[in-house]
């Protein structure tokens, strides 16, 4: 098998904006019957180009930090790398298994118990039941939720919910790790434990791509820094590793 890599050549991602009038069957039918005139505006929706003609190559061992303002296309690029959005143009080759920590709490089913959520998530990640069972204890123990795991997630406090989501989504093993902001959860004690776990996860992945607003995070873990603006790369530079920086206590950004 090839070593893990991500190669993008001229990828663009565009979001079609369907106004009410555009998203309807009426327009499409009118379009059929009236031909040209209305057709022109019906076929051409306004689009937001979130990622604009990007080319890059991430290879084994690289830790890439994506920086940029809100709306600069960081998250969209991460979603594209994780396979949710397919680029409208260009070519993207991803070799290796991908784990993404985007919106970690979104996949939870509020009516299912904590254990069921762990199980369902494992199934969605394509794991075998035996494999999930082997991980379930570890996840449960790490989350520190104890008996609560037998209760529906909707009875959890928001902090507990995040703990569970964090424990589940960081239990993965993958060649390529995609993260939107450095996750931090819970009270001081749990937060320290979580930071350590994330650190291990980052350490064991071959390629890490993390979007962040935190310059110190980039300095601490990244080997390469890519600045995005309006979906374009404005700079792409290597980061000097500061060995001392590893000891600096970081101020984690809140989990979104």
């Amino acid at each position, binding site marked *: 098998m090839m070593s893990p890599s991500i190669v993008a050549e001229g990828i663009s991602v*565009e979001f079609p904006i369907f106004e009410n009038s555009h998203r309807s069957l009426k327009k*499409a039918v009118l379009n059929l019957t009236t031909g040209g005139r209305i057709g022109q505006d019906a076929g051409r929706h306004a689009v937001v180009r979130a990622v604009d003609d990007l080319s890059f190559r991430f290879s084994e061992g690289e830790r890439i930090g994506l920086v940029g303002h809100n709306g600069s296309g960081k998250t969209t690029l991460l979603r594209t790398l994780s396979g949710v*959005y397919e680029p*409208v*143009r260009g070519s993207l080759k*991803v*070799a290796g298994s991908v784990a993404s920590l985007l919106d970690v709490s979104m996949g939870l089913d509020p009516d299912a118990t904590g254990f069921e959520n762990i199980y369902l998530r494992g199934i*969605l990640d394509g794991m075998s039941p035996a494999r999930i069972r082997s991980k379930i204890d570890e996840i449960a123990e790490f989350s520190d939720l104890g008996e609560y795991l037998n209760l529906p997630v909707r009875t959890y406090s928001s902090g507990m919910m995040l703990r569970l989501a964090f424990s589940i989504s960081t239990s993965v093993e993958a060649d390529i790790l995609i993260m939107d902001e450095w996750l931090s959860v819970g009270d001081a004690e749990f937060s320290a434990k979580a930071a350590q776990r994330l650190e291990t996860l980052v350490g064991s992945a071959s390629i890490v791509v993390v979007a962040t607003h935190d310059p110190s995070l980039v300095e601490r873990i990244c080997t390469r820094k890519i600045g995005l603006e309006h979906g374009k790369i404005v700079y792409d530079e290597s980061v000097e590793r500061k060995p001392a920086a590893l000891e600096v206590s970081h101020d984690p950004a809140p989990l979104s």
Partner: protein
Amino acid sequence: MSGSRTFTGGLDMDVAVIEREGGHLSGHNGRNDLLVGLRAVRVWGTLGWHDIRQRYRRSIIGPFWFTLSTAIMVVVLGALYSTLLHQEVRNYLPYLAVGLVIWQYMSSIANESCNAFIGSAYLIKQIRIPLTVHVCRIVWRNFAIMLHSVPVVVLLLIAFGRWPTWEFLLAPLGLMLLMLHGVWIGTALGILCARFRDIPPIVQNLTQVVFFFTPVMWSPEVLKDRGWVAEFNPLYHMIEIVRAPLTGRPILWESWAWSIALLFVGFAFAQYLMRRTRHRVPYWL
């Protein structure tokens, strides 16, 4: 700009090239989404089963509510319509029971699959798995629900003195076909509804109207020389492949031919839509 790549535009497949290796579920594209999705039995099996358990978590008799409501429906409607349509109860009740059960399965597939992708948006935008998995989840869930009504049908058959014959073996085969029909119908509706939000209410209305045109409550024989209304209704044949062997009606080769032919046409259509839109669906949600 993106006109040529949106659903209403032209076929423009080769612009974006995506190659993935690694996770077997994420490594798919529009071409093999249906195949990879259908094979992920464990994923949709677990999700669908979870849905059923979830729905009846706090109910005492749980999914057997389906059994009970089928029984009540069949007995009440059967008593009423056998009189109205001058049918013999011993023939009519099993006929109605099988027809209603299958109709409920098909109409809930049609209605729920309108929401197959819209409702699973939170998953689709987070994990790359074949879109077909979300459809199969719905189909399997409804199939399992349908199986809960089997005891009612069996009881009725026994009550009216119809003992199993070799023909009964055709019924499970018919049920398998119906399950597959659910997949293509669900895929097609799921995609179309994600793009055009007017289609769900249209489907909802159609299923109500079509019910009266489909021989569920009545049999084509009642229409006498206007029986062709049923003959040209593919839904009639889809029901008949299960109903005929169970109720001792003549087994028509046309019904099987219609059902199997429609399955091929349907999957071809679903495959066409999937190939064209797999890469666009997440953007529409």
